């Protein structure tokens, strides 16, 4: 039997109403969307565009005014669906009086994991998100925002979900944490997970998403593969190393001779994120103190994106 699509919506609409039942805000209007198995889908949009509403509808936290949403072919919010779902909220909405270990253990129990399995999984996930032994036994009220995001991610992964809904996953993380989060998302994709993330940090989405949808004032304005959407078809860019000044001039002359207009020809710049990571990691290596053990960023990260021509 073919497993239904992880996410499918048809004409999904949500209108928030006031106390007297009068329409107040049209948060989402007629959203048609389907997400394929194993892809990373990014929902983009400014604040109030309907990203979080879409995710809440897919989680069954709110009910649609009209239209239909299915998750793995079932109505959202049912235990059958939630069994295969992981959710990282915009902020880590967790019991602040629990410790890190207790938190992951609690959510493991909600998934009906046996005690041994929970212990193993808790240790594994806390390693994965980089919470050290001291942090694990502290109550969440003492956690920094970054630590809260990490423990939030751990609880979202406790059931080894098939579908992950990540609401602003890099919110509150430092550049290193942001990078690790993105690496982790790609790592999860490599394991065949389907991921829906919402963000207004465009660079994050660009780095990890296969497809994106752009929402504005509740309506889907753009939908497609990131590469296709970002491709500038009438500009050609060449990057090469070991090019002498003479060779550079020859290439430019050839291009002009062929009727092309050269827009820019200069050394590319790296991203600030890359620079920051390089400096921080170099310091960490010098001090012989790995920032964390078992983090996917250390072993599983894909090669950093190639430097780009700043103006091309």
């Amino acid at each position, binding site marked *: 039997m073919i497993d239904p699509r992880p996410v499918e919506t048809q004409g999904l609409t949500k209108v*928030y109403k006031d*106390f007297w039942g009068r329409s107040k805000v049209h948060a989402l209007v007629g959203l048609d969307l389907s997400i394929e198995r194993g892809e990373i889908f990014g929902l983009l949009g400014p604040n109030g565009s309907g990203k979080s509403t879409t995710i*809440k509808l897919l*989680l*069954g*936290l*709110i*009910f649609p005014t009209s239209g239909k949403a299915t998750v793995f072919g079932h109505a959202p*919010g049912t*235990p*059958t669906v*939630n*069994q295969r*779902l992981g*959710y990282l*909220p915009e*902020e880590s*909405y*967790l*019991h*602040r*009086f*629990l410790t890190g270990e*207790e938190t992951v253990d*609690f*959510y493991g*129990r*909600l*998934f*009906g994991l046996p005690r041994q399995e929970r212990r193993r999984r808790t240790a594994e996930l806390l390693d994965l998100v980089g919470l050290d032994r001291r942090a694990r036994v502290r*109550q969440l009220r003492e956690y920094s925002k970054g630590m809260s995001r990490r423990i*939030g991610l751990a*609880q979202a992964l406790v*059931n080894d979900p098939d579908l992950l809904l990540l609401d602003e996953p890099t919110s509150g993380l430092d550049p290193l944490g942001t990078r690790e989060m993105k690496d982790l998302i790609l790592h999860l994709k490599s394991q065949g997970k389907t991921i829906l993330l919402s963000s207004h940090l465009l660079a994050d989405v660009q780095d990890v998403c296969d497809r994106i949808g752009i929402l504005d004032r509740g309506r889907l304005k753009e939908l497609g593969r990131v590469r296709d959407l970002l491709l500038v078809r009438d500009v050609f860019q060449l990057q090469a190393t070991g090019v002498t000044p003479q060779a550079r001039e020859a290439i430019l002359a050839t291009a002009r001779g062929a009727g092309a207009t050269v827009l820019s020809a200069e050394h590319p710049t790296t991203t600030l994120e890359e620079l920051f990571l390089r400096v921080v990691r170099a310091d960490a290596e010098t001090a012989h103190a790995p920032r964390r053990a078992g983090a996917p960023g250390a072993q599983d990260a894909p090669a950093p994106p190639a430097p780009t021509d700043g103006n091309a």
Partner: protein
Amino acid sequence: MRRIGALALVAWRHGMRLRLWVLVPPAILVLILADVYSPRFDPVFEGIPAAVSTSLLVMTVLAVVVGIFFATYAIPSEMESKVAYSVVTKPVRPAEVVAGKVLGMSLVLAAMLAAVGVGAYGYILVRASAIQSLAAERLAEARPRVAYAADLNAVQAVAESGPLKTYRYHEAAEGPAVTLDMGPAWRGPTGVQWVLADTGMRLAWQLNDTPLREWVNAGPCRLRVSLLLSPVADARPAPAAAEATPPETPVPPRVMAGLLLPGRDFNREPTPGQEARPINQDVFDVPASGELEITVVAPEAPPAKGVLNLPAAAGDLGLKVLALKSAGLVGARAGSLRIIGPRGQEHLVTATPDVTPAEQRRRVIIAGRSSLPREVAVFRFAEVKPQWLEPADTAFEVGFSLDAWAAPNVQAEAKMTFVRPDGRQKALLFHPEAHHSTVLHLDREFWHGGPLEVRLESLTDEDNFGLLPESVQLRLGGGPYLWNFAKGITCVWLYGTVLAAIGVLVSTRVSWFVGILTAGLIFLLSSVRLFLLHSTPASIIAAGLWIVAILVIAILLLLRKRWTLWPRIGAVAGLLTLAAFFGFAATTVEKSAFEVWRVRLPGFMPDWVPWTFFVERIMVPLPDVTAFLPADTLSMGQALSLADLGATFMLAAFGVLVLVVAGTILLRNREVAA
């Protein structure tokens, strides 16, 4: 179950990390102070029951605070902090969320009550040792001066083996039934049911199967009652000359008679000026022949002196006759009541009249009159279970909480006769003291469980005992009853759990603040349920206004979510003050209407307008939360049977189940992120 357990564990951790346990030491301190400073008539016998009672009361307050506040806080706090997003997106059903919360609250409550209970029991043990030495001191002081050794046996038992366990005969089917013991020298008529003046006993006839109601519709009827009067031959010693009072004008024998519905009793003595109203009770002079004739008219007929209006409300109807002081001894035989219709038709009531105590309090009074046959309270200890008497105590006691009143300077004297089924008797004389629990020693050789008849008599002139059915106790040796205390705490825990379930139910739909208000209102209303069922319209109106006020507050708070704390508190205080004022005004209007204009507002007399009927139906949906509390255990530290505990447990389990189901329905249809 695993998920419910997980949610319960989180609720438990929440309670512990909110440091709810800091309430435990103050609670122990409060109960110790309350016990030390509360008045006590007899520390030897009442010390431990009072300490138990105080402890359970403090624990009840704790259960209410934790049950309502913490439970009502649980779900809304998760909603408002959005923690619920993380929980409900896991494979958890709404029923599991609600059940987990209730279970968690219950665990928190159990731990807190257990902690307070351990502290309280430690205090009770300290009290017990002090009571033992106090009893020894009292014994040493009193033995040379006491005429009846039975008085001191119980004190001795306390001195030797510590405080006594107490078992209360509540709802005893067989007692106390007060009879007049006419004695072997009685030469008067036989087959007569007698009542003695001023003891509150009534002669009662059922009139259901008679044509009275039907005949009254056609015109006035007459009730002809043949009463037997026994004049009071005052055999008391003549008063000293200095104390002699002028002779009073002879008063004819009088009785009060009334047509009363079940559960109703004589309201009060009619006062001058009350004639201009419909009445269904009045005072009648009894002629020397004893033939009393009472005219009965329709409910709407104009009232008149000596004429009774038939009660308008439907229901069982009865005629009750109460002997007033001038009547002394009044009796009636079978077939002494005759109904005469408007056209002269007659109906004979052949049944023998019952002798009943006052309906309201079921208090029986045993009067001491040397000039009259003795009035005797008889009740039977058929409920004694053999296991109560284990381990083999060498002695046990029978106690009576007596309301005794005697003339000044009179040493009250009473006799208690125990009669075994085989006829063997044992009589004990004792001196009852007003409002004291009188405890008599009964040796095990004479009786160790099983049926026993007890006859209680007053031997002193002008000395009366008031006795309620619940006041009969059996006390056994065996220390300050740990097991019973634990059972009492269990009941308090069940009570708190039900309150917590109410709190969780309410909080599934509203904010924390509104939830606490609503849960508190439900708790208050269900606690005063019985009071409301038997209250006057004014108090019902007042209660209704309170309800309206709180609903208005709830709506205002829903509408004005942005209000800060102080405007909310101000709104609550203002509206409650207004409601209290309305209640006061309603009561004042009702009282003034009666006292100034002699107008009774509808419902003032419950027989006319069925206010209680109305209120009962409003109150039915409310859980009677107080039913979970063992009243005897709370009030007097009495023993609680395992059967009662089991029944309470079942009741609580059923209540919690219903509340969880209701909470599930409410939560299922709620948008968590709305």
